[in-house]
């Protein structure tokens, strides 16, 4: 027989907290228990304009190679996306991940697991479960994880006296890639800004990051927290957007760019390609970006880079044209003068012409360093001209 007091106690302990938390279940491990929430996204799910299921290992391999990322890319179901919500962003051992969201492909479906601790003493159990899950995966993808999520979780493993679950899988931090691909065109590379601008995903009302710790503290201290449910949504969105943005970044480098693409994005991509083994592909992209219309000073940078890549590819006449344009540019362009001088010296073998260009450059050079470089080139050429006469 239950008396009223017992019944109320039961309600207080079980019913009230459960009503706050999204539907899930208590998982038990040798280190205690924690709370686990599952969600599944079907094979035809579109996140903004990206169909998640298009994600492929081959495309990711292309992307990572291009970005000079180390680490092998395993098959798709061995890749995991990860994002944590914490009790602060101040750094140090007093910062606890209370919600770890992960996403991965299981067949054609995308699955999300959210590991949640209902109080601090559930953390060891949660970490153990996470460790066991991570054993199945060979690549972890995060957004700013290199600086935040991974070292944070490593610290937590140490504190819980568990082995470091990130020792084996490789890690790919998408933030560095999005910065290189899109920063020129889109000031902010925050995940929420990019998901809106790049893949047209609108998440609706969202909890500001700064309020997340408070939402959790309210939950554990007062057992009520109106803001907590939105933290789960926020975290799930972060994980899915991370996957969708990865697909979009792969598209960026695997699909043929079109002339109608944003010229700044084309320029950014050209810069990435330029320093990869696939550097020749940057030439048409630079041309496309310049034709599409770039504003200064990016336009001048594009002309300069293109003149160098053209010379490297043996397209000397195009390179000379670009250098001539740069020399006429109101801002002094070292690359333009140097490039033109190189062309006249080596291709046209017109030393007088090369010397004249250098002299003009010397008159315009705006720094000691440029003066010095042009002068030494001029000196060397002068000697060479005398020898040849």
């Amino acid at each position, binding site marked *: 027989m239950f008396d009223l007091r017992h019944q109320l106690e039961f309600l207080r302990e079980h019913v009230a907290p459960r009503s706050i938390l999204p539907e899930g279940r208590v998982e038990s491990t040798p280190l205690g228990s924690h709370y686990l929430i599952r969600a599944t996204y079907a094979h035809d799910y579109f996140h903004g304009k990206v169909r998640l299921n298009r994600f492929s290992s081959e495309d990711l391999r292309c992307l990572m190679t291009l970005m000079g990322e180390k680490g092998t890319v395993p098959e798709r179901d061995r890749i995991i996306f990860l994002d944590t919500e914490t*009790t*602060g*962003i*101040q*750094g*140090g*051992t*007093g*910062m*606890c991940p209370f919600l770890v969201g992960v996403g991965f492909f299981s067949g054609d479906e995308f699955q999300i697991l959210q590991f949640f601790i209902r*109080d*601090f*003493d559930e953390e060891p159990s949660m970490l153990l479960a996470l460790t066991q899950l991570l054993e199945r995966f060979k690549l972890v993808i995060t957004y700013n994880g290199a600086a935040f999520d991974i070292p944070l979780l*490593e*610290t937590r493993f*140490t*504190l819980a006296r568990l082995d470091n679950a990130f020792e084996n899988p490789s890690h790919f931090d998408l933030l560095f890639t999005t910065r290189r691909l899109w920063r020129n065109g889109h000031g902010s590379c925050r995940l929420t800004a990019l998901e809106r601008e790049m893949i047209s995903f609108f998440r609706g009302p969202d909890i500001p990051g700064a309020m997340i*710790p*408070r939402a959790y*503290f309210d939950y*554990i*201290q007062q057992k009520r927290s109106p803001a907590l449910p939105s933290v789960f949504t926020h975290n799930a969105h972060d994980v899915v957007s991370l996957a969708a943005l990865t697909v979009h970044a792969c598209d960026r480098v695997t699909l043929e760019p079109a002339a109608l693409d944003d010229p700044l994005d084309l320029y950014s991509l050209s810069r990435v390609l330029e320093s990869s083994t696939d550097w020749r592909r940057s030439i048409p992209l630079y041309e496309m970006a310049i034709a599409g219309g770039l504003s200064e000073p990016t336009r001048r940078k594009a002309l300069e880079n293109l003149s160098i890549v053209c010379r490297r590819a043996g397209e000397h006449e195009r390179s000379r044209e670009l250098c001539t344009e740069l020399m006429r540019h109101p801002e002094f362009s070292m690359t333009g003068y140097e490039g033109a001088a190189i062309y006249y010296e080596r291709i046209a073998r017109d030393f007088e012409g090369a010397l004249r260009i250098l002299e003009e450059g010397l008159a315009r050079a705006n720094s000691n360093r440029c003066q010095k470089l042009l002068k030494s080139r001029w000196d060397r050429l002068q000697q060479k001209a005398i020898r040849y006469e």
Partner: protein
Amino acid sequence: MGIGRGNLGSMRLLTDSAPLQLSSLRDFLAELKKNHSVSGYHYIPAREPRLVDFPNSLDSRLRHALNDRSILKLYSHQAEAFELARGGKNVVIVTPTASGKTLCYNLPVLQRILEKPDARALYLYPTKALTYDQLDDLMHWSNALRKADGKDGGAKEIAVFSYDGDTPQDARAAVRSRSHVVLSNPDMLHKGILPHHTKWTRLFENLEFIVLDELHTYRGVFGSHVANIFRRLARICAFYGSRPQFICTSATIRNPQELAEKITGQPFEFIRESGAGEGEKHVFFYNPPVVNKQLGIRRSYVKEAEHIARAFLERNIPAIVFANSRLITEILVKYLKQSIKEGPLPENPESAKIVGYRGGYLPNERRRIERGLRDGHIRGVVSTNALELGIDIGSLDVSVLAGYPGTIASTWQRIGRAGRRSGMSVGVLVASSTPLDQFIVNHPDYFLSQPPEMGLINPDNIHILISHLQCATFELPFGADEPFGMHDVAEVLDFLRERGFIHRAGNKWHWTSDSYPADSVSLRSISSDNFVVVETTGEPRIIGEVDFTSAFSTLHEKAIYLHQGQQYYVHQLDIPERRAYVRQVDSDYFTDAITYTKVKILETMGTHAEHHHGEVHVAHQVVGFKKLKFFTMENVGSGDLNLPTQEMHTTSYWVIIPRDAFESLPYSPTERLNGLYGLAYALVHLACVFLMCDRRDLGSAVDAGIESATFHPTIFIYDNFPGGIGLSRPLYELRDQVLNAAQQLISSCTCDDGCPSCVGPTIMAKEVALAILDLLKHV
């Protein structure tokens, strides 16, 4: 023989100079002894070093490296420290400057690393300058040992790094994992290392030695903080399963062992006998002559110190001058540079090169000056206390102290910077006109007979403890039954829980705030909050600094601020920005702030006759000011001020003067009050002498008992830090000495009525103060 701080055989002693110089120095000293302003002279004969053979267990590679440094024997204290440390003891070594203290810890630490390459050591220094000095020395050791390895085979390189705010971000990971010896400071340990201990697992798992150099600097508020940092460190070491041993070194203080034990919470062995030799030493006490007897004004001690330093420098005798503030340092450099240029030049003008040295100079410049001093290229240096600690500056022959440094220990440290292990050296203390300086310079015997001060800390000051308990919980969840200091931690934790900082889950307390608690705790908080004085007569320039507590009384609006004899009118006090704007003026009056300090006794903890100590509430407010005419002290006006009240709960010593006896003194009520305030003024200054504390660590207040007919006039001398830092109780115990000293100070002062050197410039105060002291003897 042993070595100093990496100072190898550079014993450029006075005897190395031309004989002419030595005799000229002796002549000069003889002359100085006759000078009327010299109030005391003390001769310390030379002492032979006590040398012993290398300990049997000393590693052969260390023997080789020592031999390479021309060290064939150790000083007795070095060998003793080695044996004790090898025996697993915590050791505190107290020996004078330049007695080879660093070997005391380097030998056992390096030997341990040679035996066990995983072993780690953490060296802590109070200043960055010291860290770099020691880093150089350890690098030499590391190199020497690598070479020695070649012969004997064996260990790998010993990695030595400093870790502080200047360590580049990209180098930090390497320091954390590779460094055998990490050199840092308590502030970095507090903010950078402990809250990130998981990045330092290699260090904490293998930490075998912690070296705490210049232990005596960890006193007062700073020391109380450091003691709590060690409580946190101990928890973290326990988590990683290490139990480091401590080696501390200290300048001479009265209670080094007690201080070491209080700071680290560990038992210590104490090595007090230095085996290092010392050269003969001549110490002079110099009191600038009185130029205005009525007001007790003396000739500027800065000028006098400059004259004395110049006299040595002109004889081509290298000298160090210590000043008590950055500003005085700069002034002295300027004076000396000027006068040496104008005066009779020595043969080689370069040899009279004078430089300043203080915090605020760039590290490179400091290194350059240190080198210049070692190789003798720089002959004269004016320094703040920055050079008081053991930075290697070679051997200078003369140390001139412009003003009493505030403590006996500090005075000996500074005098010790002149003259290393043999030869002859000179120390001159030039007194300023504060009561403290005047007492010391007029009682050299007291100074010489007195054991140096106590290093006092109060790690259980609740304000300090709470801050560190928060940091500790942030670093590692805090066990429900875990101890932390002397308090009932459970209660303190509950206090923190109420404020939402921590939360209990299971049997552990967790940090529940998105803040980083170490950021809001400054270890050296008391002196860091200064007001700067900006002169706006012409181009704005900063002419001085005033500490927070005295800013309201000396820099309030309309105050006349005296600086280097010049008068300035304060036209604006910007409290949030901590700035006072002043204009040069030529007025015939000065201002005296009217402060209102109300002390309420909360709890009496000890009583003996009219003397008490206990807890008090202090409310301090500057409410107005008087304009007083120079010379006549005539009151020519006044003004009201509306400045914020400063309130705190702290500990205090107080003495009660029975009302009847007080009122029967044959003076007018005003005169009696002046005497009471004057006595408080003298007592608080002298209390600093006995407690080895900064003047700002103590506050004083007088309750004349006017408000209530039953209350007796009372003088309070309290800890000027919320919660107290443990000064009041020792003061209560030392009261007889302090009162006797006050009587001596006041009766021997040459002024008529009272001057800044005794009871402050107040009419009749001197006589009445002595009468009150007399009265206290008979109750």
